[in-house]
């Protein structure tokens, strides 16, 4: 049953122009990804699934879910999208793996190169001029807004738990975690491990 998801993926014929197109798309997206790569996911869906049909809908969703569930930066979902495009083009076996690696490299290089270079140059300048009043005002002034964004992100994530009346154990777990992070030095992996165990046992 589960194997069906891998079999039903279409076998694509991608030429050099298509790979270049993919690279250029991610290059162009890079500088728009203000506020994190995940904010641009809807546009990737439009391009990869709807317009080019290089990925299926389940492949797209699974790429995001796996990258979110795995440790590491969430931006790795873009690597998985590229990997799946390559797999779709190469099919099962070595050819698929090679093209998967190519797709991964194309997408990650494209999305990271412009933004990383810009960040590197800009923050170098900012650090050299850190005593300037304008630079200090910018960095300190942004602090309350950034903390607000952080709390808003937590709220958006928590809202996916469902309604309080029926899903209260999930909400409770989140609330307990907040207090533990705030008040104790307990290692974060203990909290994640406990959450995973409670979920696997079906208690939340």
């Amino acid at each position, binding site marked *: 049953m589960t194997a069906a998801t891998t079999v039903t993926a279409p076998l694509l014929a991608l030429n050099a122009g298509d790979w270049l197109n993919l690279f250029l798309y991610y290059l162009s997206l890079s500088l728009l990804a203000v506020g*994190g790569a995940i904010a641009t996911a809807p546009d990737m869906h439009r391009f990869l699934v709807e317009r080019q049909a290089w990925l299926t809908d389940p492949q797209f969703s699974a790429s995001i879910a796996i990258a979110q569930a795995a440790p590491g930066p969430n931006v790795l979902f873009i690597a998985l999208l590229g990997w799946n495009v390559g797999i779709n083009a190469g099919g099962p076996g070595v050819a698929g793996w090679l093209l998967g690696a190519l797709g991964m490299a194309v997408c990650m290089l494209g999305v990271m190169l412009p933004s990383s270079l810009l960040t590197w140059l800009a923050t170098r300048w900012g650090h050299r001029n850190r005593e300037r009043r304008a630079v200090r005002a910018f960095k300190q002034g942004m602090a309350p807004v950034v903390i607000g964004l952080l709390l*808003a992100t937590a709220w958006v994530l928590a809202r996916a738990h469902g309604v309080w009346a029926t899903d209260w154990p999930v909400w409770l777990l*989140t609330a307990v975690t907040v207090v533990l992070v705030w008040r104790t030095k307990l290692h974060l992996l203990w909290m994640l491990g406990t959450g995973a165990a409670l979920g696997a046992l079906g208690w939340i």
Partner: protein
Amino acid sequence: MAPATSPHPNAPTRPQPRNPTDLFWSFTLLALQGFGGVLAVVQRELVEKKGWMTNEEFVEDWAVAQIMPGPNVVNLSIMIGDRYFGLRGAVAALAGMLTFPLILVLTLAMVYAQFSSEPAVAGALRGMGAVAAGLIAGVGIKLFASIKNHPLGRPLCVVLAGLTIVAMAGLRLPLFWILPVLGGAACVLTWRKLAP
């Protein structure tokens, strides 16, 4: 305690990474602990455990990483790495942040099909998601304490943070508008408070 107005990460009394290899492995360990986002772990490891930076400096760097285009933690690793060892440091930190998590995520993707239908796996993901939301909120509350020396004063900071939460989570306004409007206002107000 370094005063909030002079963030100077290379202060001689402060612990700092020994070399780019140290940076690489520090960021690798940090990334591998970061389920559902790395931010909570960055604060815990770099500020509380290693002491490479203060909470104030962390918030300031995070603000810059957030406002620049590109993935936030990627930007943050480039900034921190570059500060200690220049381009070599930036590349080392970035490589640490990405290499092993990438291998892991690929492995997960390859075995995902076998286990995605197991209820226990779905439940574990749900539990970890609930904890991840709590981690981010907990760090947010903790960082708020670092605002006590802020030039704007605590009440105004609370108002600005509150407006940001409403705009983002309540009104669902795009970040593209929130950052220039609320962030811009906060920066101008701060600029007026700072000594020229």
